[in-house]
């Protein structure tokens, strides 16, 4: 069974027959977490760094923003028995258009928002594939915790 995480969406699972996938991360970030001890994993696909631009939309779609989405992803995994100190963390996406700089570089800002939250909360990134000018699709298999990334136009690669 394949669980699909849409844009501004999140899914967690502890079902070993499932994989979770999110498609077409441009400047958006796909945050993948996995606790191997209890085999609980999840993916968040957020679009923007900061919910303060529109609190109403954040209330309606908390997974749209890094600051409102990331805590919810971790909490949902904790509810299935995952623990923070065991969590493997993988980050994909945050791509940018050529010459896209400063505040217009939403991809980089999306990534920085995550780094800031992780620093504050002492979460380490296990590995990542971020930035550049490519579009990525990311998938995790719950049974094994194996993560695969596909860049548009080429094949799927295991991390």
């Amino acid at each position, binding site marked *: 069974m394949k669980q699909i995480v*849409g*844009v*501004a969406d999140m899914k967690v699972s502890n079902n070993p027959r499932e994989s979770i996938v999110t*498609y*077409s*991360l*441009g*400047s*958006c970030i796909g945050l993948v977490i996995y606790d191997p001890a209890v085999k609980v994993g999840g993916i968040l696909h957020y*679009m*923007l760094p*900061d919910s303060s*631009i*529109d609190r109403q*939309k954040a209330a*309606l*779609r908390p997974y*749209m923003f890094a600051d409102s989405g990331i805590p919810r992803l971790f909490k949902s995994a904790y509810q299935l028995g995952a623990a923070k100190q065991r969590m493997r963390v993988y980050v994909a*996406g945050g*791509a*940018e*258009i*050529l*010459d*896209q*700089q*400063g*505040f*217009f570089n*939403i*991809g980089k800002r999306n990534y920085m928002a995550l780094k800031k939250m992780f620093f504050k909360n002492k979460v380490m990134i296990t590995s990542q594939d971020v930035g*550049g*000018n*490519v*579009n990525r699709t990311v998938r995790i298999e719950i049974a094994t915790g194996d993560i695969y990334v596909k*860049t*548009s*136009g*080429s094949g799927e690669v295991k991390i």
Partner: protein
Amino acid sequence: MISLQTLVAEVKNLQPIPAVAGQLLAVADHPDSSMADIAKVIQYDPVITASVLRTCNSAYFGMKHPVESIKDAVNLLGVDQVIELALIKSGSQALGGSQKGYGLDAGEMWKYSVSSAILAKQVAARLSLKGKNTIFTAALIKDMGKVVLEKYVAQSSGKIADLVENQHFSFQEAEKKALGIDHAELGAMIAKMWKFSPRMVNIIRHHHLSDETKSVDKQIAAVYLADCLCMMLGGGVGSDGLAYRFKDQVMKELGFSAVDMSMIIADFGINMQEVEALLQMA
């Protein structure tokens, strides 16, 4: 390099965008047009009419009574929505296929096109621009050059990838260097052969703003900006990825801030089911 004759022959083999699209645009963005004028143009094309009515009667719009004519549809959904449906239906045949040269499966580029058009509508509204239907349509069909060029892009994929990855070319610049023409120029040529207005041809030709001076044309700038937003959002993006140029200067000229950009992305995130519903149109 591809010869012009080869390309002209290929364009002649394409299934063209129905004439109704051009006629509809001429009427829709004319200030003196009435709803009746618009309905008349759409009704002239029975395939488009049937498709628009089918969509109006789909669960998405939740109508209590069946919509049986374009006039009904205009009354119930508003003229803008009906124009958009007709334009989208017009483009779906020509753009709905796969473009393997760009790493796109069937329907992916079409999803990108519809998303772009909806983003362009949001940009036009946010900047209060004139000619919103022209902007919407240009964003919808701007990549049709890729339909023809994809085969040649595939043949030169190694060279193009090298130019982009190692020599700091944008994908469009690499197309031009490797093939002698890029998808924007070819799209403009197709639009001209299909008798779209000079305005539309011009927007398609410059939709990546490789000539930055064209940004004084606000419609071109809006279509360009919507394309940037759509690339960032990622849906339906091919192997060319985000390898196009971003122009800070254009944002300044338009008075478009990073906050405006985030707000449009957030709006799109909320209204994404609109794209899905439009894509499900037969």
